[in-house]
């Protein structure tokens, strides 16, 4: 026994652990907002010409990038001049998510509202530019102190906390391709254990020469020709029980998210078996069967070994017939933002197609390094009528 008095640790806020999404904001290469994303997933458009975006050379001239994006068009000039692209994309997505939800933030609840943003390595460009200055300036320490926070990975989440005055838990989750699934699990724990009542949860990735070359080298190893993507998607996440008890209607419920780490794809069936295990666990936890799943939102990006491992796992658990939603054909390979785009694309389609109300979908993800995961999501439109 410890010497501590009686335990009053946070109790479970929601026995089920089901998360509700009550609003979201998305900026992707398809455009800003859910509508262009839904359209682009249905009918993929060509990537943009990015040859004029940077001074550094790029491996190719096209990407699913927001070429004309300027943060001041969305947040104003004041206070935004030192934001890097990741921070800017993240904050604009947070703003859109807050505008999209019926959750009201005020002085009574802002200490109970937090942020969890996924990333790969923050703004690699900001960190690398800082390094570059130490090599190229007259003296190695002649770096700009005002830009120092940008070089640290939790910049977007920290700035979002400041911008929207949210004092709850503020976390940055570096998961790469798995970032959104990691964020969903981290968020589920925060809400389920009572550390907060709501979270702005999502993932960000900026387009830069660094991300473009990272994809170039990955494709040299693993195949594929999908262009780079960028953007952010942020979801307002609350306890599903609490939302329904308050008579509010969620846009979606995340019934379960399961992740794991296995041998990297390509060496035998270990990775496929691992992803299949995550998928089965997620279905079991959700209390649904494979035959209830109407859509698989995959992570396929043309990298043969990874795509084959993913397809084999999906086939093993769900069979051959479940329709796929192919998000990267519309958004490019956007690393940590890709998982957020998978979820955003699913919700954008629900919003556009009321006939799909209540449908159950599965999101899967995987990484070159052996991480795998799956989430089970039920979505609704915002058409009139009882959606739940």
């Amino acid at each position, binding site marked *: 026994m*410890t010497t501590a008095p009686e335990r009053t640790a946070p109790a479970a806020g929601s026995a089920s652990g089901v998360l509700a999404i009550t609003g979201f904001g998305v900026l992707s290469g398809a455009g800003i907002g859910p509508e262009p994303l839904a359209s682009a997933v249905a009918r993929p458009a060509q990537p943009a010409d990015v040859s004029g975006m940077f001074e550094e050379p790029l*491996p190719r001239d096209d990407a699913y990038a927001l070429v004309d994006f300027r943060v001041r068009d969305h947040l104003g000039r004041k206070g935004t001049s030192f934001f890097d692209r990741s921070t800017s994309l993240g904050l604009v997505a947070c703003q859109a998510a807050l505008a999209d939800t019926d959750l009201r933030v005020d002085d009574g609840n802002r200490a109970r509202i937090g942020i969890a943003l996924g990333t790969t390595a923050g703004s690699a460009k900001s960190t690398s530019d800082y390094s570059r200055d*130490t090599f190229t300036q007259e003296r190695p*320490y002649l770096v700009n102190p005002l830009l*120092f926070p940008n070089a640290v990975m*939790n910049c977007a989440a920290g700035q979002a906390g*400041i911008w*929207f005055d949210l004092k709850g838990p503020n976390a940055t989750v570096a998961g790469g391709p798995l970032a959104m699934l990691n964020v969903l699990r981290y968020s589920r724990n925060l809400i389920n254990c009572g550390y907060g009542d709501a979270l702005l949860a999502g993932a960000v990735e900026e387009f830069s020469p660094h991300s473009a070359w990272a994809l170039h080298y990955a494709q040299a190893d693993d195949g594929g020709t999908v262009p780079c993507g960028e953007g952010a998607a942020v979801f307002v996440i609350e306890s599903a029980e609490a939302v329904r008890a308050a008579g509010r209607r969620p846009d979606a419920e995340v019934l379960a998210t399961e992740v*794991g780490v296995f041998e990297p794809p390509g060496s035998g069936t270990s990775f496929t078996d691992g992803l299949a295990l995550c998928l089965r666990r997620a279905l079991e936890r959700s209390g649904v069967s494979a035959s209830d799943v109407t859509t698989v939102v995959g992570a396929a990006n043309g990298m043969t070994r990874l795509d084959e491992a993913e397809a084999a796992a999906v086939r093993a658990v769900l069979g051959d017939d479940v329709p796929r939603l192919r998000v990267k054909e519309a958004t490019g390979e956007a690393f940590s933002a890709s998982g957020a785009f998978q979820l955003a694309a699913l919700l954008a389609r629900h919003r556009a197609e009321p006939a799909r109300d209540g449908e159950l979908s599965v999101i899967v993800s995987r990484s070159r*390094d052996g991480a795998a995961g799956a989430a089970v999501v039920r979505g609704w439109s915002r058409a009139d009528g009882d959606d739940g």
Partner: protein
Amino acid sequence: MRRVVITGLGPVSAIGIGAAAYGEALRRGASGVSPIAGFDSSGFPYYMAGEVHDFRPEDMVRRLSVEEWGRTSLFAASAARLAVADAGIDEEHLAASRAGSSMGTTGGESQVLERLTADSLAAGFHALDSGLVRQVSSARLSQAVNRELGLTGEAVTLATACSASNYALGYAYDLIRTGEADYMLAGGADSVHRWSHAGFYRLGALTEKACSPFDKDRSGIITGEGGAAMFLESLESAQSRGARIHAEVLGYGLNCDAGHMVAPDRDSIAACMRLAHRNAGIRAEDVDYICAHGTGTPTNDHVEASAVVDVFGKDAPPISSTKSMLGHAMGAASGLGAIASVLGITGSFLPPTINFNTADPDMPEIDPVPNHARPADIRIAQVNGFAFGGNNAIVILGRLS
């Protein structure tokens, strides 16, 4: 809810690798600060850091191929190896269990990114080493732990800057508490790099030779590095396998200043302490020792000390800073602080704040345990972690009695 205990410690630090060496160095008040070897520091006015010169990952990791992983991931995996050995758990059993890892970091593998930046300046983006490019993702820190130990559970890397290890420890505690996992490796890792050395220097936050937290004449931080991993399991599990229990994780608190990216907020930090106490089911007066964030900058130490007085009153418990010995190990800092606190609990001593000369009249209530470790009965320790972005995380650890 299950009770959660720490049964394995894995410090990889500038003052010692492994619990025994680290604990002995803490008692001795050792300094791990030395001239920088990890990068060419010529041209920098200040050139000291808390580097782990003795780090030879090939002596510790068995499954990972050292050349395929960045220094920070290898810190994480090596620390995890040490923690598992210290916990004395059967590795095959562990790998077959619901087990995973939760690791915090500030810079991740940005020393790899820094090398790529140098290479791109020298030869161009088209001539980079694709194996190095692959190492940049910070997700690899926790994945390195899982892959090294053959764990197939969740691996999460929390990149919430300098309080990240506390975030990671808190999350692991919850996963075991709620039954989501049976065993977790939790902690953090970071490496020394040029860009952050330059950034802290330009911010005016770096000091020249020695870090002197809470001293009247303190003048800043020394950057540092290392890895910290703790092995967590339920109390029931530890007892049933007859494990040596180092300490219990009682709870933690998280909040965000939401005010300024780099300047800490006294009221918000005090609020975080109260949250941590409430979540852990303790009162402020139950805390016997505070392992400070204690960066050694004039502002940070004053804000932290003021918040301590706000919460604890004039009878605040001793509060010392391991950063005086280690430098600021960034994302590993609060993990190394947590391990120091656990060693203080089990070994009945207060880790000292070294380089201490003159008490600060602006913080008369503060007892920084100056220069020498002190015998003390620590039943409950509070580990402070604060970060850029106002990301506060405080963990409460207790002795199992």
